[in-house]
């Protein structure tokens, strides 16, 4: 696996996680996008997996049926937001 140029591609750009590292996490037993995240930190960066969760899902789908793969939890915010934006709001928001 090592040495192949395509394995050096960054799947998660924010956390600089390569294809090789994702494959290693799947080989280690990860069966979900979250499982890959726990092992590699892919998806934990600034964009919160907006690009890599699809790529990682595809890679997982080669090892088990897509119907068996849990999607990752998407949580607020929908885009990065300044703390001030939360604290300046109306109290009955």
């Amino acid at each position, binding site marked *: 696996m090592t040495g192949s140029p395509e394995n050096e591609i960054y799947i998660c750009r924010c*956390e600089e996680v390569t294809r090789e590292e994702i494959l290693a996490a799947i080989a280690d*037993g*990860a*069966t*979900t996008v*979250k*499982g890959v995240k*726990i*092992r590699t*930190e892919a998806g*934990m*960066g*600034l964009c*919160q997996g907006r690009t890599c969760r699809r790529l990682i899902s595809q890679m997982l789908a080669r090892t088990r049926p897509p119907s068996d793969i*849990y999607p990752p939890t998407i*949580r*607020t*915010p929908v885009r*990065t*937001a*300044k*703390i*001030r934006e*939360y*604290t300046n*709001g109306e109290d009955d*928001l």
Partner: protein
Amino acid sequence: MSMTADAAIIGGGVIGASIAYRLAKAGKKVVLCERYDFAAGATGSCDQCVFLQSKNPGIHLKLALDSSAIFQDLSKELDYTIDYFKHGGMITIENEMEMAVMSDFAEKQKKIGLDVEIISRAEAAKRQRGLAGHLLGCTYSPQDGHVNPFKLTLGFVKAAQKHGALILIDAEVFGFKLESGRIKGIKTSKGDVEAGVTVLAAGAWSPVLAKTLDLALPIKPRRGQIVITEPVAPYVTGNLLSGQYIVAKYHPEILADSKSLAVRLGVGLSLTQTSKGDILIGATREFAGYDLRNTREAIREILKNASRLVPGLEDLHVIRVMAGLRPYTPDGLPLVGFVKDREGLFIAAGHEGDGIALSAITGVIARGLICDGKAYTDVSALDPNRFDA
């Protein structure tokens, strides 16, 4: 598939992983079953703190100190980098009431062996940028630290595997195997495990499984919501907590009449920064059943509280929030030990917000009780049967 083991462990959070490692290292045949994946529950949605100053002076603090001593060399012991750092920590003091509570708390903690003192606001400001002007001061201890909860859990798991433990993920536990009243293992989606000892380490979900044995555990899920910022250059020095957390946890009577939303949600500051630079801002302590959602009102209250105490945070960006269910017990101490009248069942759950900090010592205590019939110190305060009428 049917398996046999000396110990079947339910739960792949930090507590189950720590116990799996200690038992496997002691030569026991271990099978651990985890419903989703490692650190998928409260372990993976926490504030990473190994905070000693927040522990009640007594057995609670003593166990945290002993746990902290294990963390010191744990990367080497596990041959796995867990990112444990002892950068010290502070607790903010905002008013005379908190000053009185924290002074008394710190005095008692010193007697247990914690290095802690009250420092002025000016001294605190040298350690932490951006602190609010109205603070009267802070407590400070050089012994507080933090650890990467994912790496810690994986470190325990990998080391347990090296000692022969079988670790199953995606393995849901449906119930227990019973034989003439004795618990003889577990039934899981990956087969039955027959075991001499069954260790229930399912955190806030432990009562759900215990119920199948007509066993009512005094554990309740308590939701903790945490906000995560973009990665930034080092900003938070060590860990910062607020005195309101200590007051709410150990002197709830002082706040009993408060109508404030923040008090109702159990908001107390917990501030720490990961090695990558993200700042974790916590947290709430809410009884919301098994609801794992984040709520707008809680996120706002957490951030209002944090920027009141550390106004310097206000220009940072939020990238994510998370929520975990901390396993609450009525006296703030976990349940660790064999369960009376349920022969073969051992429980290690109910650490509430102390799971990471107490994980290392919980594994050692469990190994002592299971392998030798006694722990290294008197742990009767953790007896899971202590609430029995």
